[in-house]
């Protein structure tokens, strides 16, 4: 067969094989999913109308009628009068221009705020590195230790010519990331141990302790745990000896998250066929070899979706430290909006906070979907 003939066949094949536009392609998709009956057509049109209307009025509020900056009055205070008297009313993004550094970094000394900014980047870098499978080696632990040390040095200072900044001046996004990262990093190993302890058959005392722990922590709301850590705990300590407020909240978070994660992990352990345990025993593996090499890799793989679900919920739960007076991201946002000069522009601030939380949570869920696909490749083959 000559080359030109083969080319002709290849060129002709698509045009002949492609089904008519009404069967595949966007038009067909629209017809099948949005307009397949009069009822579905009506719903589509109604929802389309509402979405366009709300979308347009949102754009008018957020972009067209928005005020981007305000003048400064004689006292050096921003004067938001032009935002208040604007007609038609629009967003006042100037509030973010004035307050974004406070919202992100709280009361950290103003000239030193590059330090928490660097910490946020370090945290994000740490998440990215930990997410890449080629870094899943022992060295990853060293990377974590190094990064967390660097974060500690940057936040506290006191060495390398950095000014010492006590913990009570930290705030904003770094607090949220510290609570979430340390909380999950310590809660996860603890939860695995608790889950294993709860399923152990030949250590009844350990089992009872694990069951009690999980049921006790799960039986009370996170808020009450935080209150206990912040209000009751100091009363039991000698006067003048007060473990740091952030540390107390952090420990409450770890205990809380571990109890929930333990149940998720236990679900994975239970879902594993008994044959896996028996096969590992038949190979003569010790308990820890069996658990580490055979059971956990399979069990954890099974529970990725509920694990990530708990992680995401937990990331957002860190905002509850609001009630014990720690300035996390949500608290700094609320405080920024309560300043008299900017009262009435809370929506703009909440929108910014929502975007930040969304970015982190969406990245987590997107990554976990990728991970699931990767892990299930062997099974789907």
């Amino acid at each position, binding site marked *: 067969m000559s080359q030109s003939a083969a080319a002709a066949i290849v060129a002709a094949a698509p045009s002949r094989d492609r089904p008519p536009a009404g069967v595949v392609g966007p038009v067909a998709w629209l017809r099948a999913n949005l307009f397949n009956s009069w009822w579905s057509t009506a719903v589509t049109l109604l929802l389309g109308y509402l979405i366009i209307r709300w979308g347009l009025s949102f754009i008018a509020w957020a972009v067209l009628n928005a005020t981007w900056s305000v003048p400064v009055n004689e*006292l050096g205070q921003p004067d938001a*009068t032009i935002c*208040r*008297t604007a007609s038609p009313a629009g967003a006042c993004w100037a509030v973010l221009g*004035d*307050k974004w*550094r*406070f919202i992100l*970094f*709280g*009361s*950290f*000394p*103003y000239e030193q705020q590059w330090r928490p900014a660097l910490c946020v980047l370090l945290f994000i870098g740490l998440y990215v590195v930990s997410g890449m499978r080629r870094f899943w080696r022992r060295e990853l632990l060293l990377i974590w230790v190094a990064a967390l040390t660097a974060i500690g040095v940057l936040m506290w200072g006191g060495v390398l010519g950095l000014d010492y900044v*006590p913990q*009570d*001046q930290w*705030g904003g996004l770094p607090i949220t990331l510290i609570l979430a990262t340390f909380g999950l990093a310590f809660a996860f190993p603890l939860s695995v141990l608790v889950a294993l302890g709860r399923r152990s058959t030949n250590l009844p005392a350990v089992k009872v302790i694990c069951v009690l722990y999980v049921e006790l922590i799960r039986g*009370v709301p996170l808020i009450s745990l935080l*209150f206990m850590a*912040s*209000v*009751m705990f*100091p*009363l*039991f*300590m*000698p*006067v*003048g000896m*007060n473990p740091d*407020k952030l540390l107390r909240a952090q420990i409450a978070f770890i205990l809380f998250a571990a109890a929930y994660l333990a149940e998720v992990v236990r679900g994975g352990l239970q879902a594993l066929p008994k044959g896996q345990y028996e096969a590992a025993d038949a190979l003569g593996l010790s308990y820890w070899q069996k658990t580490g090499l055979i059971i956990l890799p399979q069990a954890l793989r099974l529970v990725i979706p509920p694990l990530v679900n708990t992680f995401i919920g937990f990331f957002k739960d860190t905002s509850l430290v609001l*009630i*014990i*007076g*720690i*300035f996390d991201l949500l*608290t700094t946002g*609320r*405080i*920024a*909006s*309560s*300043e*008299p*000069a900017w*009262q*009435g522009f*809370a929506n703009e601030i909440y929108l910014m906070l929502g975007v930040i939380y969304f970015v982190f949570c969406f990245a987590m869920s997107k990554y976990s979907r990728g991970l699931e696909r990767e892990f299930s490749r062997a099974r789907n083959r």
Partner: protein
Amino acid sequence: MLLSILVRSVFMAGSMLAGALLAAGAGHAQGSGSATLDAIRARGQLVCGVAGNVPGFALPDSQGVMRGLDADSCRNIAAAILGDANKVKFVPLTTTNRFTALQSGEVDLLVRDTTWTLGREANLGLLFAGVNYYDGTAFLVKKATGVKSVKELDGATICVQPGTSTELAIDDYFRVNGLKFTPILIQDLSEIQGAFLSGRCDAYSTDGSQLATFRATQPSKNDLVLLPETISKEPLGYVVRKGDDKFFDLVRWTYFATLIAEENGITSKNIDSFAATKVPELRRLLGLEGDMGKALGVDNKFAYNVVKQVGNFGETWDRNITVIGVPRGINALWNKGGLQYAPPMR
């Protein structure tokens, strides 16, 4: 229910334990004779509990520095003890954990919009050392309603925050005067303000200082009227632990010193021009004669440091409260028709 009883009994046992430890600590104290003062000196820093989210009283500015009347009151005490108004660590506290934080020694001093009541002083082991703001429950209405007095609010709907002393005060006042009202309870501050502006309620009630701030930031401020009655007393001030009288004295007299300075026209700007004053009380105030500071366990120049670095009471007021649109009212000095009165310093 069982859990709450358990928690409460554990809590009480804990507070008794803390009380015992506190007494033991006070008994062993050496040095200045005040455990709190010694701790502050050793630490080189005053730990002060504030609200951290109330404009005019304690709120971080865009640069994260705590500003407000309460924050400056903390700075006063730091200047008196340590000679430097900036040696303060501000601990933001909520209404729930503020008293425990003081009882457990997490903070040395509490200046957090806290109303002086019998219950708090008698039951909680606390003492109120001074009143930096005489507040009270007030009402805001729209001018269009034509209401000129709270007595005309019979049958009105009133926006209040649930669980506050405001709610109880209104209830008491309306019952005593044989009036009826419908409360609209809204927790969130911006939501309650929005509800009032959009006309969901006829009046908005909370502490007078907050209403004045809210009114001052509205473009329609001339259409809003603050009714003249204040229906409850809310004296807000400095709180310390019981059992450390020296520290209590120091806090009280530092506050009085700022009043005496205002009374005599001494400000942070002109204080150095009084160095050669012949007036005996001013000489004692500025530490030029007498051992006023020594008697309190601090430097004789303590009042000088306070006024020089933070300012007299009037200056602190103007800087924090006047700018949010609240008139001085009953918080003026006694000789200008207000309640702020300091005993003589001698």
